[in-house]
């Protein structure tokens, strides 16, 4: 174990040397520092036990962003920029990237810092995407393959017109089902796009607010002297901006629409699956639900009746005890014996 630890320390020292040299190499990889974290974890994770591996996976996600942030400042520091110039360059770059994305509606969300830091922006969406993937019957992470950003309104209108064409013929019912399915998919895609766009605007607002915070620090004579302090300040700003945004009416509507459209899609898919099962004379989900509902009602009735029977039994026992009590004194009353003295014959006064 000590030898392994020594090798780990050696790994990080070598990384530090290479990182410094690598930044100057003409063909340096795009995100070498974030890649380092990936490679290290790939070598170590097979040995990690299950309870901790999930936690370390999350730590690695954060570490990639953290190393990317450090890489940015290290690189710009080496070019002679001051810390503040590096921060402003970073923030301005992020603002421009998000603003451009919002304006052009390009197909892919921007990765503001390369591979690592995008995980930071994706945090609110990441778990939603996993949840959506689990809720849907399709294998894999369904929503990641879904890129609605490229579908502008004119395209959507065209598709909607196509889907509104009345179905005809013997298979018109199944055609209608597929039309509804496609419509629901588009509704969900549109809701997801609106949700992502809103977070893009939030990102722009967050970077702007962070610049204000830094200016305020100048006025107060405070400085940030470590990467960790910068990261913590960034998280604090992001949380404040996020908390403000998610309490707005706009967010309430976006979130409601996102959840409702996903579930409308799933509901329709489930109905189509049920129809398929019925066609194959197999039990369907709706039949099983009906049985479960009736079973639960029967159990409720059963429990209510048992409770009533128990109450009646208790009343009965109470009445029985009262009756026995009222009968008991007559049975136990002692018989009173009266003795009359017997007169002896012959003696009289």
């Amino acid at each position, binding site marked *: 174990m000590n030898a392994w630890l020594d090798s780990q320390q050696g790994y990080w020292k070598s990384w530090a040397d290479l990182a410094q040299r690598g930044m100057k190499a003409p063909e340096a990889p795009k995100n070498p520092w974030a890649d380092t974290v990936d490679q290290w974890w790939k070598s170590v994770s097979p040995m*990690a036990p299950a309870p901790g591996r999930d936690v370390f996976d999350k730590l690695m996600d954060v*570490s990639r962003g953290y190393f990317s942030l450090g890489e940015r400042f*290290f690189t710009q*520091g080496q070019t002679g920029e001051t810390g503040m110039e590096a921060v402003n360059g970073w923030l301005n770059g992020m603002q421009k990237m998000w603003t451009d994305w919002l304006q052009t509606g390009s197909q892919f969300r921007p990765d503001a810092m390369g591979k690592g830091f995008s995980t930071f922006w994706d945090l609110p969406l990441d778990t939603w995407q996993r949840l959506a993937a*689990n809720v849907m019957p399709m294998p894999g992470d369904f929503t990641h393959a879904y890129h609605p950003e490229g579908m502008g309104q004119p395209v959507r209108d065209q598709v909607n017109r196509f889907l509104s064409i009345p179905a005809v013929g013997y298979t018109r019912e199944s055609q209608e089902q597929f039309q509804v399915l496609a419509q629901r998919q588009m509704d969900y895609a549109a809701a997801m796009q609106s949700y992502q766009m809103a977070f893009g605007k939030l990102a722009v607002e967050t970077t702007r607010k962070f610049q204000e915070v830094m200016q305020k620090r100048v006025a107060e004579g405070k400085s940030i002297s470590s*990467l960790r302090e910068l990261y*913590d300040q960034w998280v604090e700003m992001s949380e404040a901006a996020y908390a403000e945004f998610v309490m707005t009416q706009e967010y*309430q509507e976006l979130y*409601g629409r996102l959840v409702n459209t996903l579930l409308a899609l799933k509901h329709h898919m489930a109905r189509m699956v049920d129809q398929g099962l019925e066609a194959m004379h197999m039990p369907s989900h709706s039949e099983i639900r009906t049985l479960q509902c009736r079973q639960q009602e029967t159990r409720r009735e059963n429990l209510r009746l048992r409770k009533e029977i128990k109450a009646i039994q208790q009343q009965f026992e109470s009445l029985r005890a009262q009756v026995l009590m009222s009968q008991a004194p007559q049975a136990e009353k002692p018989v009173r014996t009266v003795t009359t003295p017997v007169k002896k014959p012959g003696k009289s006064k």
Partner: protein
Amino acid sequence: MMPLDMRPDAVMQELMAYGQKLSHGVKNLMEVGEISTGVTPKTAVYTEDKLTLFRFDPDPKAVMSRTPLLIVYALVNRPYMTDIQENRSTVKALMDAGQDVYLVDWGYPDRADCFLTLDDYINGYLDRCVDVICERHRIDKVNLLGICQGGTFSLCYAALHPDKVKNLVTMVTPVDFQTPDNMLSHWVQQIDVDLVVDTLGNVPGEMLNWTFLNLKPYQLMGQKYLGLLDTLDDPEALKNFLRMEKWIFDSPDQAGEAFRQFIKDFYQQNRLLKGGLVIGEPVSLKDITVPVLNVFAEQDHLVPPDASRAMRGQLGTQDYTELSFPGGHIGIYVSGKAQKTVPPAIGKWLDARE
């Protein structure tokens, strides 16, 4: 003065130290062993469907309160939070305060349970648990301690069955579900709950996890793990962290019909406070005539203090006490300071009303 004073070599050193901490941390991770939860010995005294009623094994030499205390936890998350580790056990602290502690473990609902309603939970399961305890102890009433949603259930139970409750303690319990600072409530107002339940049946625990984590995503899904780095050298601290992680992600599915009513009646229509709530029978806070101790956390982001304080003046009892704790929704159970103040205060309050 520049607000940023970071030299490139200092950044490099910081990240090198980071990497070394990771290496050391993985060593401790490999030796961490099994993550156990629930430390106080207990015995199952009653089971029904997925539910288990536990009694925490009392110390035979200890002098205990005559009236047992039944802990009613939420359906969301698992109740071992109240007994998560040796030096962070609200259950143990309550027992040390002289209470004879029982706990309802609702279990993990599956698809066969999707038609369980709030009536089934409160007037069914919970009522039968109370009957079991009363029969075991030959008493007519129990003390109730409801936690979070469990506290809301306990309020409803006390309103519907005042003859079976002696004293009621609520912890981080929402009564007003529509305070202006309630993020969860704000988010669910436009959710079509009927569509959710009709589509999914039971609501996946994962969905609730995502919702809770998104209350503070950058802290709870990012920064928290960086903080872990500073404790990786300490195997005990690592184990405690992993224990909390296990609990956070251990969310049972929610029985569909119970979820439907809870979200619609409580969150969307706020009926517990405004009136009109029916759980088998009409529920009114004014019907709660037993003594009530309301414990809440000042920095609770899940159940804002005002959501809990709203109980004040709404109950039928004249004996109402509040106890606020300067911490968060979870800190009220696991922080060292909470362990020293909250359970003893609860024990003292109950003993005064024995």
